[in-house]
C-alpha cells in the first residue's frame, strides 16, 4: 500500500461504496486507496460508470440516500471524515474541503449576485465581517483572473459566460482557504480555449495556494496536463496509480494502456484501437480481475480472485498480475498505412457558394418595433467543394457555424443567401428531385439519446427511410437485417426500444439509419463526442469500413483535431461563421497556419505530461455572433494582428498552395516561417 509520510492531506484507504437499487446492490466503489499531499494535484481518470463522481461526493459525504459506505476510511488531516458528527462536517465543508462542480451554471444560485456567493463562504464560517467578506471576494475574483472584479461581483450568474462562471465557482471554493480542493470535471462543456485557461489557472493555484487538489475527469489529455500523480479508475476500482509522466509513457495496467491506445493521437504515432467488450454490470461482478473479460494480456490466474496492488516502481502501483509483461511490450504501432492519397481531380459531390445563414429573432411584434436583438450570423459567405470519395472535416469551436453548415447541406434549413448544390457522383449532374436528394444525402447526429425517437423500436426506426423511398415491405425487412449486421449489432436488437440500448449501440443504430438508403454523401455532426473513449475507436473503424464499402463521401464535423487527423483527407477550419483555412490534413497541421488554427492547435491538451506548455494563447472570449467584429472576425483575439487593416477589411480565402487556402492579411511567407506546433508525423 502506498503511504506517504505525514505530508498527506487526504488519505483514502480501502473505500467501498454501494448503492441499494431495485435491481440489486450496485458496488460503485471497491477498495479504493490513495493519498494526496499538500500542493499536489492528483488526477483521477475514468470513463462514465467508473465511479469518479461517487468518489468526489463520498469525500464530501453528500451521497444519495440509497448509498452506503460499506468499508474503508477517508482521512483528512488525520481525522476520519466518515465518523464526523454533522456539526463538525458542516464546519469542514466549504472551509477546509471545497468543491468545484461540473456544470457551473446550475451550481450557482440564479438570484444571488456573484460577489455575494463568494462572500457567503466567509460569512458562514465566520472568517470575516460583512465588509471584510466583500473585500476578500474581490481579491479572490482577481486571483482567478477575472477582469474587472467589482463589475463581476455585482453581476448575476446568468450575465457571465461559462468560463467566468466556472472561475466564480473556483473563487468560491478558494474562499475558505481549503486544504483540499475537489474538482469534478470542471472543464467539461467549455470551449477549448476557455478550458486551456482554466487549466492554466489550476496549475498556477497549486503553487500559489498550496492546497491538495483532487482533479477528476474523463479526458485523459486534460489529466495529463494538470496532474502530478494519476489514478485510473475502472468500474469502481483504482487499477493503477503512478506519477503522471510514468503512467502516460509506460502504463503498467492493460486498461490504462488500452485507454491510451483508444485515444486518437494527434501526432499519429500511437495506435488508435478500441478496447473490446463492455463495462461490467456493477451489480453482478465477475470473480477475478474486473478487467479480465476485455484484457489482451489475460491469463487463467486473472480470473481467480481479485489481483492485489503490485508495486511497479517507486510511487507506482498497478492491480495486475502481468504488469511486467505489459510494461515490457512495446507500444502498439499505428495500424495500417495512412490515408490513401486523394483521388487526383475528384469531381465535387457538393458545392457551396457564398452561403450565408442568419437567424432572426422570433417575435414579429418585437421586430416591428425595433425591440428585437440583431440576427445571429451563423454562417457568412462560405465557399468550398466537397470532393467525391473524400472525408472533409469541418472543425471549429462551438458557435463557429459548423453544425449550421451541416444542416444546410441536408436542406434542413433554408439559406439566407448563396447557393448549395449536390451532384451525382457518376455524372456530376445536380440533384434537384427531393426524393432522390433524401436518398443520396444523409446525416448522423451528435447525441444518440435524442436522435432516436424514444417511442419507436429499432426496426421501425430503420424501416422508415426505406418506406419513404417506396421500398416494398419484404425488401425492407431484409434490408433492415442487413443494416444491423453492417453495424455489428445482433438481430435481437430489432425489437428493442432506444432506452434499452447503450450510448454506443444507439449511435450504431443512428449510423445504420443514415446508411439505410445507400447514400453517396453522409454528414456526420460530432458523432463521437457523446461516446466514451473506449467506444470511439471502434466507431471510427465502423465508419471507415462503411465508407469504403459504399465509396461514400463524408463531411465530418468535429471540434476534436486529434480525431480529425486520423480520419480526414481535408480539413476546413471555421471561426465565427467564416471559413478561415482549408487544406489537406498535412497542410493544416504544418505552417503556414492561420493564426486561429495555430492557437487552436496550441490549446489542445494531449495525453502527454511532457508536452511543452502552449506558446500561443487565445485571450478573451468568442465575440457574440449577433455583433461580429468588423474586418477580420478573429482580430479581437489574434496574437499576430498586424494593424488597422485587420479591423477594417475582411480577408478573403486565398490560395497558398495547390489545395491550401488561407484567409489572413499576414503575408504568406511570414506565416510559412513560423515553427510547427506539432512535430511532423513519422512515416509508417
Amino acid at each position: 500500500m502506498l503511504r506517504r509520510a505525514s505530508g498527506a492531506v487526504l488519505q483514502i484507504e480501502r473505500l467501498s461504496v454501494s448503492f441499494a437499487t431495485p435491481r440489486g446492490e450496485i458496488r460503485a466503489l471497491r477498495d479504493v486507496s490513495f493519498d494526496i499531499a499538500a500542493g499536489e494535484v492528483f488526477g483521477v481518470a475514468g470513463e462514465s460508470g467508473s465511479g469518479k463522481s461517487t468518489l468526489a461526493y463520498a469525500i464530501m459525504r453528500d451521497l444519495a440516500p440509497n448509498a452506503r459506505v460499506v468499508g474503508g476510511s477517508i482521512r483528512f488531516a488525520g481525522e476520519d471524515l466518515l465518523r464526523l458528527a454533522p456539526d463538525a462536517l458542516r464546519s469542514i465543508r466549504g472551509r477546509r474541503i471545497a468543491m468545484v462542480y461540473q456544470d457551473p451554471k446550475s451550481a450557482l444560485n440564479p438570484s444571488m449576485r456573484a460577489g455575494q456567493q463568494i462572500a457567503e463562504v466567509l460569512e458562514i464560517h465566520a472568517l470575516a465581517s460583512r465588509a471584510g467578506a466583500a473585500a476578500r471576494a474581490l481579491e479572490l475574483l482577481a486571483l482567478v483572473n477575472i477582469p474587472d472584479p467589482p463589475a463581476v461581483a455585482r453581476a448575476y450568474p446568468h450575465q457571465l459566460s461559462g468560463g467566468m462562471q466556472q472561475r466564480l465557482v473556483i473563487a468560491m471554493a478558494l474562499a475558505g482557504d481549503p486544504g483540499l480542493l475537489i474538482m469534478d470535471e470542471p472543464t467539461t462543456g467549455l470551449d477549448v480555449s476557455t478550458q486551456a485557461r482554466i487549466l492554466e489557472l489550476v496549475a498556477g493555484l497549486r503553487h500559489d495556494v498550496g492546497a491538495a487538489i483532487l482533479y477528476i475527469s474523463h479526458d485523459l489529455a486534460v489529466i495529463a496536463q494538470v496532474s502530478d500523480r494519476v489514478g485510473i479508475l475502472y468500474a469502481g476500482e483504482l487499477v493503477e496509480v503512478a506519477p503522471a509522466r510514468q503512467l502516460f509513457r509506460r502504463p503498467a495496467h492493460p486498461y490504462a494502456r488500452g485507454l491510451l491506445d483508444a485515444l486518437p493521437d494527434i501526432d499519429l504515432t500511437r495506435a488508435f484501437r478500441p478496447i473490446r467488450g463492455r463495462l461490467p454490470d456493477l451489480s453482478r461482478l465477475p470473480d477475478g480481475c474486473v478487467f479480465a473479460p476485455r484484457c489482451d494480456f489475460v491469463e487463467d490466474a486473472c480470473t481467480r480472485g481479485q489481483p492485489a496492488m503490485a508495486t511497479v516502481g517507486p510511487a507506482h502501483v498497478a492491480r495486475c498480475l502481468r504488469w511486467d509483461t505489459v510494461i515490457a511490450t512495446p507500444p502498439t504501432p499505428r495500424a495500417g498505412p495512412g490515408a490513401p492519397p486523394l483521388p487526383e481531380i475528384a469531381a465535387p459531390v457538393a458545392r457551396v457558394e457564398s452561403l450565408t445563414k442568419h437567424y432572426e429573432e422570433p417575435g414579429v411584434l418585437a421586430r416591428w418595433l425595433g425591440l428585437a436583438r440583431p440576427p445571429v450570423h451563423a454562417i457568412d459567405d462560405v465557399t468550398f467543394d466537397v470532393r467525391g470519395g473524400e472525408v472533409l472535416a469541418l472543425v471549429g469551436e462551438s458557435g463557429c457555424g459548423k453544425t449550421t453548415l451541416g444542416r444546410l447541406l441536408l436542406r434542413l434549413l433554408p439559406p439566407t443567401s448563396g447557393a448549395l448544390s449536390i451532384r451525382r457522383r457518376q455524372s456530376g449532374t445536380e440533384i434537384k428531385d427531393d426524393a432522390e436528394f433524401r436518398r443520396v444525402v444523409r446525416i448522423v447526429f451528435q447525441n444518440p439519446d435524442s436522435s432516436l425517437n424514444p417511442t419507436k423500436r429499432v426496426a421501425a426506426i430503420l424501416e422508415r427511410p426505406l418506406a419513404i423511398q417506396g421500398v416494398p415491405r419484404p425488401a425492407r425487412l431484409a434490408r433492415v437485417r442487413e443494416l444491423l449486421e453492417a453495424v455489428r449489432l445482433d438481430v435481437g436488437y430489432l425489437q428493442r426500444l432506444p432506452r434499452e440500448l447503450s450510448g454506443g449501440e444507439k449511435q450504431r443504430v443512428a449510423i445504420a439509419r443514415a446508411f439505410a438508403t445507400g447514400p453517396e454523401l453522409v454528414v456526420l455532426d460530432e458523432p463521437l463526442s457523446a461516446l466514451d473513449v473506449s467506444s470511439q475507436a471502434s466507431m471510427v473503424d465502423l465508419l471507415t469500413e462503411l465508407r469504403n464499402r459504399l465509396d461514400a463521401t463524408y463531411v465530418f464535423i468535429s471540434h476534436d483535431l486529434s480525431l480529425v487527423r486520423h480520419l480526414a483527407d481535408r480539413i476546413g477550419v471555421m471561426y465565427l461563421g467564416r471559413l478561415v483555412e482549408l487544406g489537406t490534413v498535412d497542410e493544416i497541421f504544418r505552417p503556414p497556419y492561420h493564426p486561429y488554427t495555430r492557437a487552436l492547435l496550441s490549446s489542445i491538451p494531449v495525453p502527454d505530461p511532457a508536452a511543452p506548455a502552449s506558446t500561443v494563447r487565445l485571450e478573451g472570449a468568442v465575440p457574440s455572433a449577433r455583433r461580429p467584429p468588423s474586418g477580420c472576425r478573429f482580430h479581437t483575439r489574434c496574437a499576430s494582428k498586424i494593424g488597422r487593416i485587420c479591423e477594417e477589411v475582411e480577408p478573403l480565402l486565398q490560395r497558398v498552395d495547390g489545395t491550401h487556402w488561407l484567409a489572413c492579411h499576414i503575408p504568406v511567407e511570414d506565416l510559412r516561417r513560423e515553427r510547427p506546433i506539432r512535430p511532423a508525423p513519422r512515416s509508417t
Partner: protein
Amino acid sequence: MASYVVRRVLSIALVLVLISLIVFVAIHVLPGSAATLILGEYATPESLRVLEREMGLDRPFAVQYAAWMGGVVTGDWGYSLAMKQPVTAIVGLRLRNSALLAGFALLAVVLIAIPLGTLAALRRGRWLDLAILTGSYIGISVPEFVTGMVLILVLAGPSLHLFPTGDYAPLAAGLRTWLSHLVLPAMTLTLVLLAHVVRQTRSGLVEVLQSAYVRTARLKGATERRVVVRHALRNGFLPAVTVIALDLGYLMGGIVVVEEVFAYPGMGRLILYAIQNRDVPLLQVSILIVAATYTFANFAADLAYAWLDPRIRYR
C-alpha cells in the same frame, strides 16, 4: 426589462381586444335575435322589428361591435333592460362587494397557504406533509357550492346560527354585522384557493430544494436554515407569484357559485341575473369586466415575476 414590459403591454392590449370580441360574439350568437328572447316566443314580427331598431340590432355586426366598444371605452356602458338603470350605476357597487370577498381570500392565501406549502415541502414525506397534502386534495376536490352549503348547514342553521345565511350588510350597519355577512362566503372561497396554492407552493419549493445550487450551498457548509431561507425560498417563491395570479381564475369562477349560494350581491350574482333575464347590455359589460380584471391580474403577476427573477430583470 424595459423591452419585456413593452412587449407584455402590447400583448395585453391585443388580448383585451380579442376578449371583447369573444364576449360580443358569444352573446350575439344567440339563436334568434336578442329581441326575440326579450319579448318572448309569441311576439309579433312587427314588435320584434321595432325593438330591434330601437336596440340598434339591425345594423351590421361590425358597426354594432364598434359602437359598443366605443361606449365602453368612453364610459357609456349601456342601459340595463332588466334593472332599468344605466349599467354604470349598478356595476360599481357589485364590483366592490366582490372585490371584498376576493381580497379576503387573497389575504388568507398569502398568510396561510404559502407558509403551509413551505412547511409541507420542508417536512416532505413526514406526517405534517401528508396531513397538509390530504387537506389540500380535499380542498381542491370539494366543489365550492357543497362547501358553502355545508357551512350554512352547520354554522348558520337554526341550532347554531352563528352567521347569517347570506346577503350583505353595509359597514354602516356595524362592524360586527358587516363581518358576519362576509365570513362564510369568504371562508368558502378561500378553502379552494388555499388548497391550490398550498400544492403549487409545495411542489415549487420541493423542486428548488432538489436543485444543484441548493446542493452547492450545503457543500459550502451552510446550515439547513440558511440553505432554506437564503437559497431555497428566494427562488422557490417565484413560481408562487405566478400561481397566485393563475388562481385568480379559479377565484373568479368560484365567485359566481359562492355568491349564488350565499345570495351575496356581487359581480357573480349580477352575471347570473343578467343571464336569467337576458339582459344583454348588462351581461356583456359584466363579463368583460371580470375577464379584464383577470387579465390585468395576470399581467401584474408577470411583471412581479419579471422583477423578482434576475434572469429576466437584467437581460
